[in-house]
């Protein structure tokens, strides 16, 4: 059974309202307002770890007094052992960059399939610490690296060495001891293909191993700072308390490399969106809720208020958005008590938000999903993609025209004749293959541009089809127009996967790649979006998540939009 038929069958069991249409959902501004939900990948991993009582633990710690060396962490999922090997190295400040062009990092990581031998650890040390320049075999499942927040790491280590806990405000301001700058999987540099392990029961969901890796990195960063503090303070040193451990997530610094993924995987993206929209439709169909749910939702609202209060960024534009969201959320809260005791309360709250900003609308969607795990958590099994984009050569030109008219009305309505509509080009630099976005004039050859000019291709195709009869086949048309083969296949794919296309011009002068980044990161479960520019952001993962030793089915779900106050209660 594929992921689609699975959703369709479930819809016969669970009542639901109509889904929001793709032309509403798949707009850049809305995608750039997404929040993490309980459907996000890290949340579903935590639930699965708790269900299996799978607790990552350190089995080897070989660090010197300064915290340099290596550690191994192990976890068993569905009776298979996975090991994280963490390498910690000195790094000069001038070499600390989060960009792909970096050549060295504070820490490098390998998720290994099974238990590594000493020889594996040494061989991988020589490769993993060089990241993209190293070479790997299919025993390596994920490769990652991270840089310290030096200021916070040093503050925490010094405080602990003196027998004190770190300053809560300093912890809240940064939110992590290390931030990853890449998490590679799926066959990169010779590693295992996703197809090699996707059939394992716990690993079918997208990015499952990447999320597991980051969760284990969180454990490592806490152990590392405790180790350094112990070395500095000796008997005076104390360990980081549980509440602060929980509140420290793992940062992530992300640039343009994440954006093309959404364009290049239309079926997968469709499935993510379908699941999210189906979950919303199910929740909106709930007719009434009991007192416990009312009470729980009100406590969630207070938690969100605290989260928004603590969420501050340097970027002026984004800070204004956050401040606007705080005000909009406060306005909505006035109506919540009344709506919660009305018929169809979740639909009522969602409907109320629609008169406000898109930021508030998307926050409310994440919020109303939160108390409804029993209704929606099973949908996460439908988020993978097993189908591939197919060309249907037997389709008639008439049918192709109908699909374009229905699914690509947005593209046909754009005026693409202006310089502004063709201002930008996505490309890959020869500088360590770093993805970049520049003016179209800066990329000399068309074939060097990433194929993100979808509406342009659609309009060109429509013009070419004007010379064809409706009864002609796609195969006959393509025999003389090979350059349309890719866009025809894409259009035929979108016909069956309507949430798979971003419905905006991604090469327009005002495109904001940060919107694509935020969309994808929200599915990962990221919070505290902290844009450094319109194409670069920092975020935090697993902030508020229980440490492995404390993880249980009762608390696995308890990390929705965390705040320091919430965690330290």
């Amino acid at each position, binding site marked *: 059974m594929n992921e689609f038929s699975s959703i369709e069958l479930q819809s016969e069991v669970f009542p639901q309202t109509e889904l929001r249409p793709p032309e509403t959902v798949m707009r850049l501004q809305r995608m750039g307002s997404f929040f993490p939900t309980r459907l996000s990948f890290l949340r579903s991993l935590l639930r699965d770890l708790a269900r299996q009582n799978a607790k990552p633990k350190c089995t080897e710690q070989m660090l010197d007094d300064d915290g340099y060396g290596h550690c191994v962490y192990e976890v068993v999922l569905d009776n298979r052992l996975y090991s994280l090997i963490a390498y910690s190295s000195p790094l000069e400040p001038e070499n600390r960059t989060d960009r792909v062009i970096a050549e060295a990092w504070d820490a490098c990581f390998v998720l290994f399939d099974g238990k590594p031998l000493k020889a594996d650890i040494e061989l991988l040390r020589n490769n993993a610490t060089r990241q993209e320049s190293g070479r790997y075999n299919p025993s390596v499942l994920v490769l990652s690296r991270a840089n310290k927040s030096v200021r916070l790491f040093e503050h925490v280590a010094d405080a602990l060495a003196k027998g004190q806990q770190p300053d809560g405000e300093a912890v809240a301001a940064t939110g992590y001891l290390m931030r990853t700058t890449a998490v590679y999987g799926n066959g990169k540099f010779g590693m295992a293909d996703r197809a090699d392990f996707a059939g394992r029961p716990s690993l079918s969901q997208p990015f499952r191993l990447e999320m597991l890796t980051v969760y284990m990195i969180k454990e490592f960063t806490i152990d590392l700072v405790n180790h350094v503090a112990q070395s500095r303070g000796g008997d005076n040193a104390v360990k980081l308390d549980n509440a602060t451990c929980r509140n420290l997530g793992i940062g992530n610094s992300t640039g343009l490399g994440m954006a093309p993924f959404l364009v290049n995987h239309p079926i997968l993206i469709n499935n993510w969106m379908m699941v999210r929209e189906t979950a919303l439709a199910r929740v909106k169909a709930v007719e009434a809720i009991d007192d416990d749910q009312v009470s729980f939702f009100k406590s969630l609202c207070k938690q969100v208020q605290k989260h928004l209060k603590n969420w501050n960024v340097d970027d002026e534009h984004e800070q204004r958005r956050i401040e606007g969201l705080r005000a909009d959320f406060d306005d909505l809260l006035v109506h919540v008590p009344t709506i919660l005791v009305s018929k169809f309360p979740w639909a009522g709250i969602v409907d109320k938000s629609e008169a406000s900003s898109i930021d508030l609308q998307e926050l409310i969607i994440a919020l109303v999903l939160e108390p409804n795990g029993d209704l929606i958590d099973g949908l996460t099994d439908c988020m993978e993609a097993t189908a591939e984009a197919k*060309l249907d050569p037997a389709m008639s030109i008439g049918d192709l025209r109908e699909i374009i008219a229905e699914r690509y009305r947005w593209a046909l309505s754009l005026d693409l004749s202006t310089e502004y509509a063709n201002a930008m080009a996505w490309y890959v630099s020869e500088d360590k293959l770093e993805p970049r976005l520049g003016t179209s004039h800066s990329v000399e050859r068309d074939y060097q541009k990433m194929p993100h000019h979808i509406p342009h291709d659609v309009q060109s195709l429509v013009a070419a089809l004007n010379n064809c009869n409706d009864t002609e086949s796609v195969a006959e048309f393509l025999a003389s127009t090979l350059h349309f083969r*890719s866009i025809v296949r894409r259009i035929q794919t979108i016909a069956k996967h309507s949430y798979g296309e971003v419905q905006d011009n991604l090469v327009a002068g005002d495109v904001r790649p940060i919107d694509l980044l935020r969309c994808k990161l929200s599915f990962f479960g990221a919070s505290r979006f902290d844009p*450094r520019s319109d194409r670069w952001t920092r975020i935090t993962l697993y902030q508020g998540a229980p440490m492995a030793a404390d993880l249980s089915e009762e608390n696995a779900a308890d990390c929705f939009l965390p705040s320091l106050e919430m965690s330290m209660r």
Partner: protein
Amino acid sequence: MIVSGNELYGTALKACIGSKLPRGVSEDISRAAVVIAQSGIDPTSMLIRTTELPDSEQLQWFFETPNWVCRKGSVSSVGPSLVDFSQLVVGSGYALTKDADCPGLIYGCALSVAETNSLNFEVSFGNEAGEADCEWLIVGSQSTIARIPGEPSNIALKCWGASQGTSVATPIGGLTVNDESWADLKKLAELILVPANEANSADAGAGTTDND
């Protein structure tokens, strides 16, 4: 050299695009390359030959589908032959080629299309008279393949019925490719890269140090 399936697909795709093959054709050829590699044959030299094909007659192609299109003629590159392979519904046919590297790639493309269309599929390589003087290669639901002996110039094709899927599993331990051919393929893939300079360094949208 051992590479992953995703690595092979990505490198082949970039190499084809860098060689100015249309994107859609590049996508199909790259997918075919993975199918070929999964069958135990190194596709890298075929890929390189494909990117070097001159714009002249390389392939004589004939295929019959009783319920749809009959096509006969010459095509000048792998690209149009892919279109014709897209028409593999049910039927049989043959292809003649003067390029020793082409049969394997054509086979891979055909297999890829047949797999996509969930067809059982049978291919043979033979001599110019169309005689099957080589081993018959049975693929599809049985997922078996024999190595191509000699330099066959004829491919016989037959498709029938819907299969329950013809996926060839990725061998554990990755895919084996020739080191030199892989290096050549990587060079072709680098053609899509934009030279770095001070001006476009800012296009990444971030500074060059991150100390906080």
